[in-house]
């Protein structure tokens, strides 16, 4: 008997949610309330109205199986994917079980605000997680997301130890979270991780955000280059840093 997931959207072909062409499931509901969120309609855990759709996990796997030959893998994003981690677990288990979908890589795109039990459960059925780090500084993090970042940092360390840390993403909001000191501290902290994950630098873009984000300026290419040089100054090897451009971040 297949359980269900509350789905905000499904994107059957994406080239910006992990390596290769990916089928992306955006789950509804998030623990953060980010000022810079591009999809604020996906934040509510039990939306009274909106596009969210309750879908059987088996049906989602059927849909993926049909187009599997065109895919590198599947990414579960959000909202915050781990809010529905039981459904994610079942989805990944089913993808791993079926011959048509077994070869696909299974990634979670997450804000990292999850308990250790979540990663212990997902670790064996997923290939990795892409974790957003909004700010290393707790005060800035609280300001940007409405929540502290201790669980995010713990998640990154735990995923690192589990060898399931695919990528850490830094969303750059000019003059908010990109200071020289912040970037140097972030580089040192990330540099201490043993699995040496890729670091993706993404620029903030105001499309789709709420009025609260109007105080923020869109990141330009040169803002990102400055961030990269600050990270390199802080000790991160340049070849591990990927500039993902000024595309939207799902988690904002």
């Amino acid at each position, binding site marked *: 008997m297949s359980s269900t997931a509350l789905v905000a*959207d*499904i*994107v*059957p*072909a*994406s*080239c*910006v*949610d992990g*390596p*290769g*062409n*990916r089928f*992306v499931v955006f789950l509804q509901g998030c623990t953060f309330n980010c000022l810079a969120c591009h999809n604020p309609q996906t934040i509510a855990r039990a939306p009274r109205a909106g596009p969210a759709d309750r879908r059987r996990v088996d049906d989602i796997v059927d849909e993926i199986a*049909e*187009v599997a*030959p*065109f*895919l*590198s893998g599947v990414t579960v994003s959000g909202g915050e994917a781990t809010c529905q981690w039981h459904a994610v677990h079942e989805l990944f288990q089913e993808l791993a079980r079926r011959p048509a979908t077994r070869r696909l890589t299974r990634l979670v795109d997450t804000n990292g605000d999850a308990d250790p039990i979540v990663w212990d459960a997902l670790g064996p059925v997923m290939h990795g997680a892409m974790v957003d780090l909004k700010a290393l500084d707790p005060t800035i993090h609280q300001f940007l997301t409405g929540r502290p970042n201790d669980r995010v940092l713990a998640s990154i360390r735990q995923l690192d130890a589990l060898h399931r840390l695919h990528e850490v993403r830094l969303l750059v909001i000019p003059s908010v979270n990109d200071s020289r000191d912040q970037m140097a501290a972030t580089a040192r902290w990330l540099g201490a991780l043993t699995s040496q994950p890729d670091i993706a630098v993404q620029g903030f873009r105001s499309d789709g955000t709420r009025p609260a984000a109007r105080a923020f300026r869109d990141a330009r290419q040169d803002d990102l280059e400055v961030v990269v040089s600050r990270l390199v100054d802080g000790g991160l090897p340049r070849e591990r840093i990927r500039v*993902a*451009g000024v*595309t939207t971040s799902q988690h904002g």
Partner: protein
Amino acid sequence: MPAGQHRRTLTEMDTDEHRHTVRGLVDDPTLTYRQRVQALAIAAENTLDPPPVSEACAAAMDKRIVCDMREGHAPYRPRYTLPDYELAMRQGSAFLELAPPTTFDDATTFLLALYGNVPSITGHPVWFGDLDHLLTPFIDDLDDDELRARLRRFWVLLDRLFPDAFAHANLGPEDGRMVRAALAVHREVRQVVPNLTLRVQPRVTPDDLLLDAMRTVVAVAQPHLVNHPMMVADLGDRYGVVSCYNSLPVGGGAHTLVRLDLREVALLHHGSSERFITDTLAPQAELAAELIEARIRHLVEQARFFDHSWLVHEGLLRLDRLTAMFGVVGLAECVEHLCVLDGQPGRYGQDAHADALAQRIVAGLADIVHSRPMPYCEATGGHALLHSQAGLESDVGLTAGTRVRAGDEPDLYRHLLAVAPNHRHVPSGISDIVRLDPTVGGNLQAAVDIAKGALAAGMRDVTFEVAGGEFVRITGYLVRRSDLARIADEQTVRHSSSVLGAGSFTNAHLDGRTAQDVTRVRSHEFDGAGR
């Protein structure tokens, strides 16, 4: 050509008309010298009567149901030739007074000399051969920089000596220094010549080579990809991809290409689609086959090409390696019309019942073409080969070959899965264009995934284009956007194919082709596309 001209002898009025045509060509300020000579040669050929055909066939040509592709009234060389360059390089050429090459520069010189003496319908060679296979034996003593520098000079000459985007080179399926150098040079010189195809074979063609191919696609909209195992199964391992994306036997080629306009055929039909294939399509297809046969007989028995060509004397072309192409266009419009006759309107690419009907028509036509005996087509079992013809510059409101109409393409997967089942019925080439959003350049593996999925789904040829780029894919060949602007401004352009391309671009609304936004394709965003 004007109606009725096929069967008439040259009357006095026609003589005046002919003089007018020739005068127009002589005075035309937009033609280069070579383009003018080529056009004058066709005008001279067309003062002869075309090969005789039945009244019914001539009438079908007058109505443009059947079209001889304006090949000319007196076929005197095969439309497409694929000389056995490998054999030539092994044995040398008495006609060209060239010994077998021993160095890289000898080899490229040898090939250029050969290309300059290869006949085809365009006046330029349509095939440059399997260039990586041909040149690999000569690269051992060259380092990568040296190889690229020499190959670059060769590549520049291909474009400047044979300025025609139908001139096609093949690479793969194996990886190697030569194929890598060719892709790198192709990205660097940004030419529309050579047209380029990479053969792809699972477990032989590595992903890393496909990534390099996609890097090249993003830069210059080439190469095409061809499904190598599928081609080998249909044509044997000695095949080449020439002109747009026409796959034909090496050491031979195609005598002729005649096409059937399925839109016009559908308009002749009455009643439901149930009996379309037997009642209407089969007799019209026979008229096209009759024209193919008449043209082959002229070439072989009257013009006696295979008796006097030096390429035949040296074994580089052999009559038993020739075939003929039965082209088809307008499947999209045909299906749409038949759906209306069935009282269930639908569009190919948009509606499942229309897709199913399209597949039934293609399969039915393949049966007809591949069971109709054709003289001098021993290379392919004594019959012509079905071909999805990519269109003529004069086509208005007519979709190329078996493609989904530009603008009607559904989301990526549905598009490819709708067209893929047709590919196995069309051995001499069929191509569907996938237009990618430029952002895929940041994740080339995504493009590789889509290409591999398309080939696994049974596609024979896959052609990518990047939306908004300088290189525009017209039918199977490329033109540069800047050249289209020059033609609109009535200036001369170097590539004869670009002159054709300008007509197609305007008449076929190619700018309306749906870009598959693989940044993130949301299926619902395409629900209303093109309606």
